């Protein structure tokens, strides 16, 4: 089951690359594969025994037996939701890429499918080297997707992205090698907990860059601005969650002592990122800038939840990971749809798009209010749990979070108003139509997922850890 989830998109990518299909059939095939992947995931949800929890659908084959490295994959409760986020968001991104008609469709969609498989691999790998392999396999298609299909400044954006992430990855590789050799196994389930600060910091560096945490977000604005909207959606919606997953699955679970030791500085960085990102989002001049910096803020919040290491914070961060993934994917896709109509993302040149475009207005408004965590939304549920969790480490963290909630309201409302309200902007012509049925077909399912989650956030929070006790799972290192 787990292997099917990983291999299906990879195989589909190979088929699309190898067969001389025309654009339409390649797109249709890719979309079909992405939807099949969603179908397999639904099977996974149905069959996963949430009552029991823990590692399920495990599969293990020896790889280099003398180093105790194996192909070991499996699924925990919370990874079910992250995989779900991945397959749903990727399906939407592939559908949108297909509809928008990117150049060299086969190569493009093949890379997207490959990326899907790699991300699912990251969320399921139970062996450190395999985890690293998938982590890198996830980055490579992204380098190409940003560097080839991006906007005018794509080369600079890609270079920054590659440098930052490679630096992190290599530190992580060094940590993995030292950690694995010292414990005499690379198996993530078997491997014991370590108290080495250096190994811990190596992992943290990789994940903090990927997330990103302040001040390691130098690559973020460029990468999110220059890539095509669906790639930006995946970058901020899905790929950043791989880092949060790493914090949760490796950093705090395998390094309890260093995690406690470095909690205050990490929480501080996360809190600074939260406020900093919110403030910058408030002044960002374009749609993508707002979403990019709000992503920085949200990742800070998620990190706070993970490093609070208590039941509330862990549940909340898993919920917020899924929620922010969906929100950010939807917002970037919507940004793409707006830019397609107006040829600009500059807020100063937009405005008044609500008039005569009820579908766009409704979808954007709904996503926006969920993004600003209006109470009763799933984002609110996640943020509430995280801040309630981090409150136990000091009320100051929660006050920072509360300030950020107010700032979030300010920047999201500014974004919504700048696009939809007031006078019609110079870049908005009457020829800019409302959302087409195909575009609605891409974003409405995402919004529907968000609304469903808002009605029942406990679907995730109650079904992420064994007996809803995240701390027990973490304390045992997810054994």
């Amino acid at each position, binding site marked *: 089951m787990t292997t099917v989830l990983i291999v299906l998109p990879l195989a589909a990518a190979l088929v699309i690359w190898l067969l001389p299909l025309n654009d339409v059939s390649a797109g249709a095939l890719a979309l079909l594969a992405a939807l099949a992947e969603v179908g397999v995931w639904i099977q996974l949800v149905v069959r996963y025994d949430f009552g029991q929890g823990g590692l399920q659908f495990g599969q293990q084959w020896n790889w280099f037996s003398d180093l105790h490295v194996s192909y070991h994959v499996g699924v925990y409760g919370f990874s079910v939701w992250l995989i779900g986020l991945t397959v749903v968001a990727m399906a939407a991104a592939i559908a949108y890429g297909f509809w928008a008609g990117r150049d060299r469709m086969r190569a493009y969609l093949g890379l997207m499918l490959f990326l899907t498989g790699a991300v699912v691999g990251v969320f399921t790998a139970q062996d450190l080297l395999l985890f690293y392999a998938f982590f890198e396999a996830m980055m490579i298609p992204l380098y190409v997707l940003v560097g080839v299909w991006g906007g005018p400044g794509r080369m600079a954006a890609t270079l920054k992205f590659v440098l930052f992430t490679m630096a992190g990855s290599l530190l992580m590789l060094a940590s993995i090698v030292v950690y694995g050799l010292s414990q005499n196994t690379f198996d993530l389930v078997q491997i014991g907990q370590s108290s080495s600060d250096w190994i811990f910091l190596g992992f943290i560096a990789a994940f903090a860059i990927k997330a990103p945490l302040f001040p390691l977000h*130098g690559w973020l604005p460029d990468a999110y601005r220059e890539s095509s909207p669906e790639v930006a959606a995946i970058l901020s919606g899905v790929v950043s969650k791989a880092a949060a997953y790493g914090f949760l699955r490796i950093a705090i679970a395998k390094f309890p002592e260093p995690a406690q030791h470095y909690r205050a500085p990490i929480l501080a960085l996360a809190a600074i990122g939260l406020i*900093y990102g919110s*403030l910058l989002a408030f002044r960002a001049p374009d749609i993508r800038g707002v979403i990019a910096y709000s992503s920085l803020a949200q990742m800070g919040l998620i990190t706070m939840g993970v490093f609070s290491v208590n039941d509330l914070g862990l549940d909340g961060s898993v919920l917020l990971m899924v929620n922010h993934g969906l929100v950010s994917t939807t917002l970037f896709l919507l940004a793409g749809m707006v830019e397609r109509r107006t040829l600009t993302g500059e807020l100063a040149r937009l405005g*008044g798009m609500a008039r005569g475009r009820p579908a766009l207005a409704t979808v954007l408004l709904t996503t926006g209010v969920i993004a600003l965590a209006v109470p009763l939304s799933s984002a609110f*549920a996640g943020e509430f749990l995280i801040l309630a969790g981090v409150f136990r480490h000091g009320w100051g963290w929660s006050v920072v979070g509360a300030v950020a909630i107010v700032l979030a*309201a300010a920047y999201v409302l500014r974004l919504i108003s700048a696009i939809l309200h007031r006078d019609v902007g110079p870049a908005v012509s009457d020829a800019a139509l409302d959302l087409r049925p195909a575009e609605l077909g891409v974003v409405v399912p995402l919004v529907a997922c968000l609304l469903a989650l808002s009605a029942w956030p*406990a679907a995730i929070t109650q079904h992420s850890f064994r007996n809803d006790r995240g701390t027990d799972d973490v304390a045992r290192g997810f054994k």
Partner: protein
Amino acid sequence: MIYGAWICLLSPLAAAGLITLAGERISRRGAGYLATLSCFVAFGGAVATFVGLLGRDGEQRSIVSTAWTWISGGSYRSGFEVMIDPLSVFMMLIVSGVGALIVAYSIGYMDGDKEERRYFAYMALFVFSMLLLVQGGNLLLLLAGWGMVGLSSYLLIGFWHERPAAIAAAKKAFIMNAIGDATMALALFLLIKKAGSLEFGILGGEYSSTVATLVALGLLGGAVAKSAQLPLQTWLPDAMEGPTPVSALIHAATMVTAGVYLIVRTHAIFESAPHVADLAAGLGAGTLLVAGLVALVQVDIKRVIAYSTMSQIGYMFLGVGLGAYANGMFHLMTHAFFKALLFMAAGIVIHALANEQDIRKMGGLRQLMPRTYLAFLIGSLALVGIFPFAGFFSKDSILAAALDRGAYGYVLWVAGLAGTFLTGLYTFRLLFLVFWGEPSPFVREHFHALKSNAVGLSLAVPVAILAVLSVVGGWIQWAPLWHPIETWLQTAAEPTVSPENWQEWVTSALALLFGIGGMYFAWLFYGARERRSVPRFAFAQRVLEHKFYFDELYDALFYRPTVWIAKGLYRWVEDPLVDESSTSLGQDTRDLGRLVARAQTGLLRTYALAIASSVAVLAVVFVAVK
């Protein structure tokens, strides 16, 4: 009975969802009917619940019905649940009843607007949110409803989104409310930490006085933001940019009174933090004076009523802060009647005058629209608290409660009485300016009477019903003689003050006197045939016209610093440090690459020579090491 409560909660949500999904497949009028119907269904559900509750004994009148676990985290969990108790049923009746009337009124008022469907979807969403607020079975759901009403209020204030003023007002309202949400959330975090749960029952637990004070302060922060009390009051007047029925429903009858409901609902924690309760009463007294003063100089018909709303909510805060919960809730109810009436009558005036709201251009409407005048008069008398109109019964008993509270109570009592004078003054200033005298040239030019078609009916009928309620609504309870509301709410919130009968009588007499005094002065300056010239105090006038400079203060204290900090961060951190460093990192790497690339001559022989010589060197090294 439980089903009644659920139907009450969910039917407006269903209507909102249906209207949104139906899009253009539903006619604009159809959307209005659907929304109205859903609100009446909700009212039916509320009545059924009320009847069901009546059939139970006092102690068994609190039922929690959980649909599913909404959120969980370890051992903490909160269900999606409704709470049915005398307090919530009381509020359900007001919200769905007044809400249904106002939505029905909207069918006429919004007739011809291009986006009626959106309007009715928002209205239905608001009614759902407000019902969620009052029915929510735990503090988290209360907060959820709290935020949702803020959202729907944002949507409705900014309904005419092509007007920059409307959008600015909407954002301001939302952000001010978000501040309140945030302080409430902080209070809840503290409760989760201390009690591990957010059921209402935990509020009565034993907490250290610091904890109780902090929690109460957090909740009070939410309450003042939502109810537009000092110091978070500045959004409410601006919110009048929304359509008039919205002002009637949200910014007069229901949402803004949620703060009062909150304090009553969480009274246990306020009782363990008496200083915060006193603070609430003090803020109420302060607001009622400030708002009353500012209302004296406003020239926009809706803004005058908005300030009077703030002022009246100030009375309610005064009451519930002192522990006179039933009196506060009673005033909340009568206020919902007469303030909605005033807004809707004002709406008819605005409608008849081609959307003009400036009272300086109005006058002499008494002859032209006598029935509207009558409705407005009833509303005004009820607002001032003249016997036997509704406000008389509810407001006076709040003031009487203040007498039962020692020295602090006397201060509040005096403030309240002064407020009564102001109320009489500004209310009748408005009435005289708009309705008395000769029709102004503007009125002559623009006036067009209501037609007696569906539009006219939908405007007139709710106003008539509310007019009747504004007269008889107060007779339900006359504190010295009979008090069914107090009895009804007793199990939910036991009052901590009980004024003596002589206090009630004295207060009533004085309040009546001051109210009539205010009306008399209004008549002297604005109503009499030979008007006195209005005394001018340039300084006071300027201060009042600037609403005590709160807007300017907050602008300077919060908005501008935020913008400056954000700009500063871009200028001194993001661009030079983060962006520049990553750019130069990229550039340096590229330069380094260029440097190394020089070794690549492209000549095959160089490579071969390099390989050969390296092998030779290695061989020598190996041999040497060996």
